[in-house]
């Protein structure tokens, strides 16, 4: 596989513009089915069996299954904290539930975002009556996570060009700078909104 030269942020933007049957399905159906899947996952113990089904759907949609599974694993550190607490309190079954249930739920959402452009998901949610403010906030987060991701990639590239290693010290310092830069960007975005007559999200 050729090495990517540019920033790797938001593979979802690329994946979501494929041509498979899943991509072509109306976003409202996909959102409704995902919500149903999430409900079943939260209610049924055996819903973990949906994970292979998600993998099959991803294959059918010509998506990289391992990459999807890896990105979904981002939820594990959060659920692992609670799973560990349950384990230590002597409830291993609950600990297992606290690990796989969030992961399988996140898999469904990851699949949805990988086969549906964000704009379509938000439009579908709007049609279902989701509050506009909530959708605006979600869009903002998605949009500017991408921008921050690009900035982080540029910082990492610049650091590597100067011989920096991937040590904790370098990463922590870069994260602090990124945090400060994010704050500055937030100020500029707010000013841009004010200049166009907005008062922030409405």
């Amino acid at each position, binding site marked *: 596989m050729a090495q990517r030269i540019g920033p790797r942020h938001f593979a979802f933007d690329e994946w979501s513009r494929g041509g498979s049957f899943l991509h072509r399905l109306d976003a409202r159906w996909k959102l409704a089915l995902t919500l149903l899947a999430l409900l079943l996952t939260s209610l049924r113990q055996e819903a973990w069996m949906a994970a292979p089904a998600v993998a099959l759907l991803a294959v059918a949609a010509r998506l990289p299954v391992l990459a999807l599974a890896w990105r979904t694993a981002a939820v594990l550190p959060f659920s692992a904290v609670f799973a560990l607490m349950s384990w230590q309190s002597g409830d291993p079954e609950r600990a297992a539930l606290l690990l796989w249930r969030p992961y399988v739920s996140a898999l469904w959402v990851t699949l949805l975002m990988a086969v549906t452009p964000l*704009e379509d998901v938000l439009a579908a949610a709007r049609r279902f009556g989701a509050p506009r403010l909530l959708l605006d906030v979600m869009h903002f987060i998605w949009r500017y996570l*991408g921008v921050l991701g690009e900035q982080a990639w540029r910082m990492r590239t610049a650091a590597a060009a100067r011989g920096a290693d991937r040590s904790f010290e370098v990463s922590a310092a870069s994260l602090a700078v990124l945090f400060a830069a994010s704050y500055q960007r937030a100020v500029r975005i707010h*000013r*841009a909104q*004010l*200049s*166009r*007559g*907005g008062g922030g999200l409405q």
Partner: protein
Amino acid sequence: MSCIVDARGLRFSYQPGREILRGVDFHLHRAESVAVFGRNGSGKTTFLLHLNGILRGEGHLRVCDLPVAPPHLQHIRRKIGFLFQDPEDQLFRPTILADVAFGPLQAGLPPAEAEQRARRALAAVGIEEDLGRAPYHLSSGEKQRVALAGILAVEPEVLILDEPTTHLDPPARRALLELLRTLPQAKLVVTHDAAFARALCPRAVFFDHGRVAADGPTEEIIRRFGWDLGSPPETSPVPR
């Protein structure tokens, strides 16, 4: 020509004891195009942010015959179209059309009319197809044009452009220059791009240490302060 921006003795500090603007005197007339030069940190952008009330300092400042203070701020912000340096900061709606329609909607226009204004503004900058695309997938030049359409859609009387050519390649710079020449609004252009300034603005001001150190024909300002790579400054800037 009537005065559309009238600033006298404008002062501002971000923090006590560190004045950024030290008595700025500046005026802009209708349909006039003025380049704003100055070193980084000389107060150019800080001054511009006063014109639409984002920052509020001390001194006399009127825009479109209104004091830049509540309750006039929303009205003034519709009169001033501010194009920020980085279009990433300015494009925050899901689609091109939604982003350009943001300003008219904030101004209270009905959605149908806001969309019409947005389409007209996009046509003016040469973007008429695929308006459902996300604006952040565009090239730098296209983003700049969409951001410009976003401010044109509210039909401002003054355009403020903060280093508009920073992210643009030469063909995109040329396209932006040709576009700006067709727009009738008064323009204030902060730029380090001497060629761009020469081509667009007959008049220029030079900011130095929070004041307007010089105000005159663009070529004269460029030559006097060496604002062109090909020539050194004829005089030293105003001492601290």
